[in-house]
Every structure is written in structure tokens, then in C-alpha cells.
């Protein structure tokens, strides 16, 4: 097998200084949400690991994840694509097409067998042997199985690859599903979101690229560093929830004052994502900050948890949301635990409602 280049060697080849290399490592350390004492590990990884090969394939999708990826502010898309990884196959950016492009995929899979990172965007269309998603004259199921076989790591980018996404919403006409069960039993890192935050996307692939291992994940396969908190727990409008101050309608006085959007259907209380802490465009905004209730786009079945602008079902035993908010405002110490309970109750109620709906 031919020797592959490390990030440090790449810097040398491109004539960059040790200083700029270390600066790059500093940026990556903070990008991945690691503490500064991890810096030496990042440097070590960047010096010794080969420049990773990435194969990016598309199933049933909208290319919004690709687009999000190239919106990354740190690292910048050009740096990732040309200096940090070797993106050998991607429908959006690759120059080649047709037969030579497909042949290059086969060569890449063979040459880097067991070494490449497979990024998957989009769901698997399973119905009727997969004829509803064809590329290069073959089904996407065929392509996925082929590409997964020799992959060192598999990243499911976006809610479609992670859980099936929009096309899997009822009635799921094409039998679409997440990729998990179609990759030969290999572990899948799930990066849900519709789309995921740009820096989350580049952060995950850079983690794999730099450390040569999957990022620490929760039981569902989501990287803990990006999906460890509910948006509600990190939301800058949380104090208004606790104080019982809500926007009742779009553009009312509460909406103008930036109060909590819970009553307009916000899914922040049950959605695990980095919108509240990283935000979009490196802190510029996220839907709630722009006045739009969260639709829970990183949740597994969020498309069938509609209507989005209805408030969640009443709390039941816990009583009305205003009372809860006010009560928790007083009992701040109990606040976090109380909300955790409340959101579980809500979710159960919503699922019950959905079930009833389905059985109508």
C-alpha cells in the first residue's frame, strides 16, 4: 500500500511554516470543541496520520447537506476540500462525471480499502428493489453497500441519512430509511439536522480525519460534542420560558421583545442539537433567535410530529405552561430536572396523539 501523506507533510509540501501548521491545529482544537489540554494530541494526530480520503455519496436527498458543508466558517470549505482531506468522489463538487467518474470511485475504493471515510447524504429508497433512486445505472442501495464495505468510518450526514428524513414521512412512498441497516453492520456516526450546522459537519469529518477514530457518540450514534444538549437547555430565550413570558402569536409584543416561542410550537425542549450554543454562521443566529419556532429538524421522526406551529399538548398532570414557567422561575434549582420531566411527558403525549392519528 502506498504511503499516504499526513497533514504536517501536506503543510511542508505546500511550503507552510511550522508556525502556521500549529495555528491550524489550534483552530481545529477549538473547532472540535476540545479543551486546550487536548492541543498536543491534535498536533500529534495531524503530524502522524495520513491525509484522509473521503468518498461522499448521495441517495434520496436535496443536496442541502452538501451546501451546508461548504458554508463552514472554520475551517473554510476551500481549506477542507483542498488541504485537509482528499475528496475523491462527490456529486456536487467533483469535476468528472459519467463512466470515468464511476471508474474512479471503484479505483478509490480498491486503492484505499479499509482506509477511506464514507460520507452519506440522503436516505436509502428500499421499495421495489431500490429502483426509485438510480445513479450511474445502478440503485443507490447497491452503491451504498459497495462503498460501505471498505470504509474505515461511515458518517450519515443529515436527518435523511440518519433517519430517512422527509421522503420517509408518511406515507413514505418510496420505502425510504436511514442508512444504518444497509452498511453491513458497521457503526454509523449520525449527524442529524435538516441540514446540520455547517461547522458541525466539518467538525465531525475533521475529528475522524485527525484522530483516525470515531468521535465519542451517544447511544444513538450522535457525536456527544454536538448533540449533547437540548436546544432548550442552551437557548438564550430560556429565561423567558422560566419566567412564563411567551410570544402568543407571530409579531405580537412578546415576539417583538424576543420572548419564548414555546406557545408557537417551538420544539427546542425536545431537540438535541448545537443551535443554542454554536448557532449558525458562528454565532450569528438560529431559528429561535430569528423569531421562528424550532421544528426539531434533528429529531428522528420530526416530519410526522406536526403541525409545527401548534403548541405541544398540555402538560397534563403538571398543569398549564404558564403556571409551570412561573413555578420554575421560583424554583430555579428544580428547573432543569423539572423541564426534563416535562419534555418527556410532552413527547409521550405527542406520540400518543400521533399513534391515534395513524389508527384513525
Amino acid at each position: 500500500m502506498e504511503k499516504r501523506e499526513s497533514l504536517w507533510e501536506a503543510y511542508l509540501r505546500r511550503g507552510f511554516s511550522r508556525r502556521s501548521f500549529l495555528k491550524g491545529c489550534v483552530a481545529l482544537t477549538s473547532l472540535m470543541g476540545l479543551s486546550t489540554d487536548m492541543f498536543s494530541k491534535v498536533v500529534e494526530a495531524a503530524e502522524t496520520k495520513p491525509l484522509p480520503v473521503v468518498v461522499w455519496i448521495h441517495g434520496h436527498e436535496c443536496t442541502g447537506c452538501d451546501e451546508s458543508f461548504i458554508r463552514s466558517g472554520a475551517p473554510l470549505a476551500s481549506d477542507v476540500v483542498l488541504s485537509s482531506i482528499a475528496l475523491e468522489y462527490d456529486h456536487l463538487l467533483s469535476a468528472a462525471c459519467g463512466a470515468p467518474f464511476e471508474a474512479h470511485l471503484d479505483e478509490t475504493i480498491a486503492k484505499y480499502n479499509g482506509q477511506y471515510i464514507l460520507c452519506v447524504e440522503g436516505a436509502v429508497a428500499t421499495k421495489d428493489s431500490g429502483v426509485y433512486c438510480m445513479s450511474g445505472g445502478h440503485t443507490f442501495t447497491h452503491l451504498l453497500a459497495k462503498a460501505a464495505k471498505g470504509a474505515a468510518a461511515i458518517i450519515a450526514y443529515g436527518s435523511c441519512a440518519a433517519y430517512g428524513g422527509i421522503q420517509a414521512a408518511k406515507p413514505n412512498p418510496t420505502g425510504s430509511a436511514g442508512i444504518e441497516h444497509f452498511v453491513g453492520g458497521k457503526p454509523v456516526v449520525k449527524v442529524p439536522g435538516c441540514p446540520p450546522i455547517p461547522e458541525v459537519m466539518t467538525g465531525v469529518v475533521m475529528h475522524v480525519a485527525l484522530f483516525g477514530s470515531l468521535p465519542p457518540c451517544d447511544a444513538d450514534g450522535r457525536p456527544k460534542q454536538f448533540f449533547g444538549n437540548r436546544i432548550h437547555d442552551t437557548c438564550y430565550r430560556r429565561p423567558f420560558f422560566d419566567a412564563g413570558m411567551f410570544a402568543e402569536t407571530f409579531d405580537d409584543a412578546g415576539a417583538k421583545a424576543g420572548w419564548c416561542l414555546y406557545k408557537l410550537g417551538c420544539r427546542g425542549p425536545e431537540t438535541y442539537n448545537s443551535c443554542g450554543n454554536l448557532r449558525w454562521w458562528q454565532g450569528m443566529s438560529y431559528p429561535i433567535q430569528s423569531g421562528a419556532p424550532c421544528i426539531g429538524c434533528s429529531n428522528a421522526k420530526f416530519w410526522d410530529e406536526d403541525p409545527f406551529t401548534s403548541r405541544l399538548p398540555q402538560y397534563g398532570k403538571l398543569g398549564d405552561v404558564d403556571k409551570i414557567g412561573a413555578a420554575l422561575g421560583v424554583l430555579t434549582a428544580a428547573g432543569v430536572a423539572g423541564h426534563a420531566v416535562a419534555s418527556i411527558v410532552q413527547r409521550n403525549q405527542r406520540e400518543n396523539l400521533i399513534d391515534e392519528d395513524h389508527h384513525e
Partner: protein
Amino acid sequence: MQHVVVDPITRIEGHLRVEVTVDETTGTVTDAISSGTAWRGLELVMKDRDPRDAWAYIQRICGVCTTAHALASVRSVEDALGIAIPLNANYIRNIMAATLTVQDHLIHFYHLHALDWVSPVEALNADPAKTAELQVAVLNAYRLDLKVPEEVNTEAYPHDFPAATPQYFASIKAKVQAIVASGQLGIFSAHWWDHPDYKLLPPEVHLMAVAHYLEMLDKQREIITPHVVFGGKNPHPHYVVGGVPCAISLTDGNAPINTARLAIVDRAVNMARDLVNNYYLPDLVAIGVIYAKAGRVDGGGLARERVMAFGDYPLNGYSGTSNGGGYFENLLVRSNGVVENFAQGVEKAVFTPITAEDLKSPDIISEGVEHAWYEYPESAGKDLHPWKGITKDKFTGPKTGTPTMWETLNEGGKYSWLKTPKWKGKLCEVGPLAHYIVIYTKAAKGQLPDPTWAEQMMLKQIEVVSTVLGVPAHVWMPTMLGRTACRCLDAQLAAEVNKFFFDKLIANLKTGDTTTMNNEKWTPDTWAPECMGVGLYEAPRGGLSHWVCIKDGKIDNYQCIVPTTWNACPRDDKAGHGAYELAMMTTHVADPTKPLEIPKVIRSFDPCLACATHMYNAKGEEIHIISTDPYGR
């Protein structure tokens, strides 16, 4: 004769396959197939949902032209319900739409289309000092100084300006050299870099374009920030039926939109203008001039015969499109209509307007399925208006190969998941080229009374480009090059439209009006038990229409007829070939073993296939109102 398959077509959105038959002795394409090879059934997913949520679902048709479907969707629901949105909401939506157009066209040119014209391999032969000189010459010759009459220019100096120094281009060249030397070509792997077309341009143009490819890859994210400010994120910003979700307050401490947030938008508006005026347009003209002078004005196809547009940017208040709400009477760019026979000269061209009544007429817009993997019952007739549409799948597999392993598709039978949309039984090309041809023709025929500043700017753009290229408009416009050039002109226009509506937003806020939402018909108890509507948007890829039918507070049917469906549709036995197929059939192929011209002419349309594939009902049941496809930009 050689049968050539190109599948997948890359640097587009979605899954597209083309097959062409080439006479290798002459380079003539004698037949061509365009096939959408995937569909997701999103319109079916829409059934029984809350119409106020429709934008969120249907926006997921496409993440490249994100916002396009959300905008058409809220417009369709508001048309059905008769909701007039507040002025601020109209201005903000227009800024988001124009922002999308600039950014989308910019990405298309540099990251999806440029590598059909320029090559990093050729850039290695460039002299960095000469490239710097070229950059200066290009800026001197090809900056088109066309602007909206603006209230105030908030930019002290052009913050985003091309570097024209030998050192800069030397560093870009060194980077490309290092990548090529490493043997790991990444995104540049396996392409036909030895195609003769890459020798048309001097090496310095290649190096300049490669530098700008990299710069724009990093800059594109900064001009889309109005979506992040107003819609919370991008791709897929948030919308709301009745207005915009971003409440405005200049007095509250935690408002979604305040002066500081507007300043972010202002910066993005200025930046978009700089990037188009200082990079995109000069680069485009620099490449276009060489191609035009080499006589490369092929690939026109259907644009020579028939183009269609819807027009856009409602200026002020309106309450609907098909419901008599004044949408068409209130547009900044009145390109709603069809132009036929433009290639024969504007004197012989025929213009026919599209009106609100036309949208509702059963005979104007229809769809056929002769060569699409669907079937209509015999009693239904050959073509159906979208509101009477039936969608029943009939996958017949390829001509040779198996259903899951295709060799060749069946041009005599069914071969695509796209239906064939028609205007008065005829096929039309849509897109920025169509948009410009319609305005140009209307003006020439005296049917554009009191042209708006935007329409005047479009006419001026066409005049200037015709002069620079040294070719009359009816010759250069309906071509592969013209399609790519008009997209750039559209980006320049959209950058000014952004500024125009930003100024209008500020002026309206000055009056004390901060309203962003009309809540009068928010709750379903205020809606008619049954109603239907149409939402139009002149998307980056052309005229987009969404058709919704609401019954008892839920979506009964939802359909989108998307620009790529108009362009990429399969043939019709009576009406002939669609725009992609005809464009391929009017393109010269130098070497069938390296058919670079084929994906190149296809990319001149900026394909968006996820948008174009149809809805489908698994049980083959009749779906009352619609059935088509979505997508667009």
C-alpha cells in the same frame, strides 16, 4: 453512430442521466435522452398536512435552491386563503429571494459550471505576472457599471476586490502544482482535462478563474447571511404563512430584528454587489468573448423556438396571484409571458402574455406522460391541467439491462420520472435566459410601458453584452453561452434588487411601521372549507409554480411545476423534444469518447433534479388536483 451514456451528471443537484447518439464523423448529435432517475414522492407526503406547515416540507425539495420552494409555497397558500402580507414581510421575502438568486448563480458559475470552461491543469502553464496584468485588463474592460437608483451607498470602498498581483497568482499556481504533484487530485480527479475546449482560453484565464473558484468557495457563505438573520439558518431558512417570522422592534432589547441585525444584511447586500461586479461578471465576459469570437454559439435548442417566464418581485401590497389579488399587476420585472421564434430576430418573434386567468384555464398549462414512468387512464385524455392531474406510476425499466442495472433507456417508450409540462400544448424553456428574452422582446414590441428601473437595467445589460461580444442579441442569447451569460446578468440584477428592497424596508421602518405578520387568517376557522391557490416565483432556474388545494383546513392536494421539469422533461410525440434534449441535439461534440460538451450544455441550465421528479401514488389512485413536480430555484 455512437451511443454515449453520461450517468451520473455531476456538479448539479440530484440524479440525472443523459444518453446521446453521436455521428462521430460530423460531431452531430442525432438523438438525445434526458432522464430524471430518482423521485421521492414529496407532494404525496404533503397530503393532509397543515397548509401553514407546507413551506417547511416542500422547501426540502431542494437544498441548493433553498428558499425557492418555501417562498412559492407560502405564496400559494396565501393565494388560496386571500391573505395580504405586510409591506415589511414582502420586502424581506424579496431580499431573501434576490439574495438566493445572487448566491445561487455565483455558486453555479464558479463551482458547478466553471470546470467545464477552465482547467487547473491549464493554469499550470500560466505566468503569474501576466495573469496579474490580465486581471487588471479584465477589470478595466468588463466591469459593467449598472446600478439601482439608490438612497444611500453605505459602502466606503469596495471591500471585496480581486487581487491583481503576481505574488498572489504565483501562490495559487503553487498550490495547484502541489496538488497535481501529490497525485491525490481530489475533486479534480478523473476528468477529461485533455479535451480540446480547454485550449481555447489562454493559460492566464485558467489561473485567474481557478483563483476565483477558491475565493468564491469561501465568500459565498458570507452573502447568504440575510437568510440567517431573517430566517435563522441556511440552507432551509424559516418562513411563515401571512408574513415573516422575524419580528422587528427598534425599542425592545431582545428583538429578532433591530438596527444591528439590519446592518448585517446591509453588509451582505453590499458584498453581493461587489462580488458580482468585480469578479463574476468580468470573469464571465472574459471567457464569453473568446468563445463568441471562436464562433461557439451552439447549444441553443428550444430557446430558439420558445421560452417562458413568470416575472417577479412584487413591489408593494397584493393579496394573491390567481384570486385577482393583483400579483401580476405589481411586479418589478414583468417577464410573465412566452416568446416564440426569438432566434429568427426580434421582429419575427411572437410574444404572448401569461395572466392570472391563464393559470386557471384548463387549456393553457398541462402535463403529459407519454414518455414518463406514469400513465393516465384512457378516459382522462392525453394531457391534463395540473389541477386535474392524475398520477399513477408505471415503471417499465430500461430498454436493455435490468430494472436495477440499466444499460440503455427506451427512447421509444417511457424513460424518466419527470412528466412533460406544456404551454398551449407546446414545450418551453425556462430560466434566466427566458426571463431576459421576454423582457427584451416585450420592449422591442412596445409592450413594456413605463419600464421600471430593473427592466431598463436588463435592456442595458443586453445592449452592452451584445456590443462586447460583437454579436446581435438574437444570435448570442439563445445558445449555451447565452444561457450562462444571462444567468450572470440576472445575478447582477438581483444584487441591485437586494439593495432596492433593503432601501424600501428601511424607508418603511422610518414611517414607524414594524409589522411583519398578518394574523387575520391564521386560524383554520377563518378559512373557506375548500379553496385553492397558485404561488409563483421566478426562481434562479426559472419560472416555478406551486399549486395547492385546501379542504377542511388540510392540504388535499399539492403540486409543483418546477423549472427543471420544464427543461429536463422527456419528449412528447407531438410537441417534440424538451429543452435539455434539444440543447444536446444542437451541440457539436468534438470527441464522443470525451463528450465534455454534453454535460457542459446540460449544466448551462443549472439542473436541479430533486426538484423535477414527480409525485407518485403507490396505490395508483387518482389524485385530484395535482401531480407534478417541484423544484426550481
